[in-house]
């Protein structure tokens, strides 16, 4: 059991006509919290707020701590929280290699190109995708995209990963494999993970689970 990496308290989300109060959340290193609930209930909004972005029409307040330090007011880029969407959002103007290079943490961006290349190719080899380094992202299959997307996020060495319906775009056969691989990687790197999904299968069996609370009147 790792130590607590992400914790929140008193989160309240206010829409024009209703509000949701969330129970405190705690996620330990290498563990997963699954949040389940119907689509459109505000799960994605929560993730985007956690990563540091306020949304229009939803006013979210509350406290977030990463490794025990409040990140209130800390800009997105300094929170060490990564996010992965269902559609992965690889940058279409960059090839696979450059997408991964973009994900290197600030310290490693100073390294020589040769060293950067070495690190990235190593990761690509580990998932048997080294021959795709120069490929355009539009030429990748759904499964390949998902893997590159996670790789890019993990290269950045985040403390927390937020997964927003990460497997919804994949077909059933692939989905199983990618899911296993993804959680394996996250556990290995001791990342605290929150995954939101409307599909219970997407949440690992050993994960803590949170059911999205009922909305109340504003």
């Amino acid at each position, binding site marked *: 059991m790792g130590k607590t990496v992400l914790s929140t308290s008193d989160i309240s989300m206010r829409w024009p006509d209703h509000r949701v109060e969330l129970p405190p959340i705690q996620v330990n290193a290498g563990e997963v919290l699954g949040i389940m609930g119907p689509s459109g209930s505000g799960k994605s909004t929560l993730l985007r707020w956690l990563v540091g972005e306020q949304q229009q029409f939803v006013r979210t307040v509350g406290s977030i701590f990463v490794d025990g330090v409040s990140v209130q007011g*800390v*800009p*997105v*880029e300094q929170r060490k929280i990564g996010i992965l969407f269902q559609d992965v959002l690889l940058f*279409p*103007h960059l090839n696979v290699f450059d997408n991964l290079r*973009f994900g290197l943490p600030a310290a490693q961006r100073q390294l020589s190109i040769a060293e950067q290349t070495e690190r990235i190719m190593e990761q690509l080899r580990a998932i048997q995708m080294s021959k795709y380094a120069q490929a355009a992202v539009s030429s990748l299959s759904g499964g390949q995209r998902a893997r590159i997307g996670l790789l890019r996020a993990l290269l950045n060495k985040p403390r927390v990963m937020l997964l927003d319906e990460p497997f919804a775009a994949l077909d059933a056969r692939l989905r199983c494999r990618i899911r296993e691989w993804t959680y394996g990687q996250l556990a290995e790197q001791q990342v605290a993970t929150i995954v939101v999904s409307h599909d219970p299968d997407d949440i690992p069996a050993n994960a803590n689970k949170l059911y999205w609370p009922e909305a109340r009147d504003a």
Partner: protein
Amino acid sequence: MIVAQLKTKGGLALALLALGLPLIAAVLGLLLNLRQLNFVALLSYPGICTMIWQGLLVAIVVTVIATLVVMVSSYAISSSGLRSIIAIPNLAFTVGILWLITPTGWLWRLLPGIEVDLFDRQYLLTFILILLLKEIPFLLFMSHRALQQIPHQKWLIIGQSQGHSKAKTWWLIVIPALLKRLRLPLMVVAVYSFSVIDIALLAAPQLPSTLAVQVFEWQLNFTPDARRLAYTGGLVLLALSGLLCLVVIGQEYLIGQWSRKRLSSQVSRVERLALKLLKGLGALPVLTRVFGILALGALLAQSVSRGWFYPAILPADWTLQGWLQEWSYIWPGVISALGIALIVGLLSVLLVTVLLELKRTYHWRYLAIWVLLPLLVPQILLVLSWHQMTNYSGSEAGYWLWVIWSHMPFSVAYAYLVLAPQEHAFDQRYVLVGRALGYSFWRSWWRIKRPLLAGPLYLSLALAMFISVTQYVPTLILGGGRVATVTTDLMAASSGINTQLAAIYALMQWLLATGILIGLTGLAGQRGSSAGEQ
């Protein structure tokens, strides 16, 4: 945290300063002159009613026909050839077209025996035709950009898969969505047609002319009476411009209502016939292209010919003398125009970019109205109130700065018109992902959003520069004569009888404008090929 806030605050302040000041200056200028209002004098001025209805009629007819044309032909016609036509300066275009289509025009000389005096000088019909030829390319261009923002191909397939014809799906599903996105460009077309001066001076009836021309003439008169008339007339112009914006919304509403009704019921036979007839309007975009090229040809021919009278098909003499004589005097104006346009264009795109990001952050809802306001206010009114506020005279650099400042509102407006819809459609989560990977907001913007929006960014830069190149009144009045551009040279040359001189400067202005538009949009096409897909 505090630094970030300061940064956004700084951006906010900068944006307000750059954008707000000209408008605040204009509003103050208007308010300071409120006591000058004199509606009685205005309404008893000879011919005022005709001026107003004439102006409104032209604006409404042009807007409605241009809307119909866009609805009929947006799907089929590509906008690739339109840029060079958008780039033809108004005045040059008007002169060229008149030289072609008036009863003694060159077109009819090719067809002896056929007399067409439908499109003489100073006819309402001619005026409308020229405005249409000028506005349709602009609108088609905007509609192509708008269509890229809606998945109309998918909609057409869905419609057909549910047993509706392609045409019906187009009219009932795509068109309402398209028109909604064209609302602002259509307003610009309506107000422009209502307040245009240079085209009206040559093509519109003069007894009386349109209200805009009359206000312009009052402005150039300096008796106290004329000043009062100018301010009152300017305000009426402003109010009626507002009315025309409502007409655009009304038109959109009516078409929307019609298509909603027809979704569930059959399209009647009459409507079917009307739609078929409308198809004929699809020829207009082709015509604009043909006329654009012909007008250019006419200018080119006029710049190298002498003694070309009706009914001669060819001139008595070809000569390069005009070009040779003016050659060395043309360039300073071209270079200053380009320099100013470059600065104005870059600043405009920068400002629009910052504004759009602030709009996302602070959810400003009425930004568009503010930014486009300079296009919806008669220009001469704005410029004279700016001059009154600034009242600058001093070092030469100062005049250049004021000219740049005075071009900004117009360039910003057009840059916004092009960039805003594309920016709006941009998936901002890309920037969020970039930030989550440890890049600051503007670094993410620069490395991700900028390349993905390269096409629209270049295009808005091109349009902003083009608009700067074509500014006459602000350059003249605020430049204090220190700033001579190819456009001020052209306006001076056009005021004389020497059509050769005017044609030479018009061609140079056109070359500069087209060079900018084609060069930058070419870059946009290369760099921004991936921008559309998401």
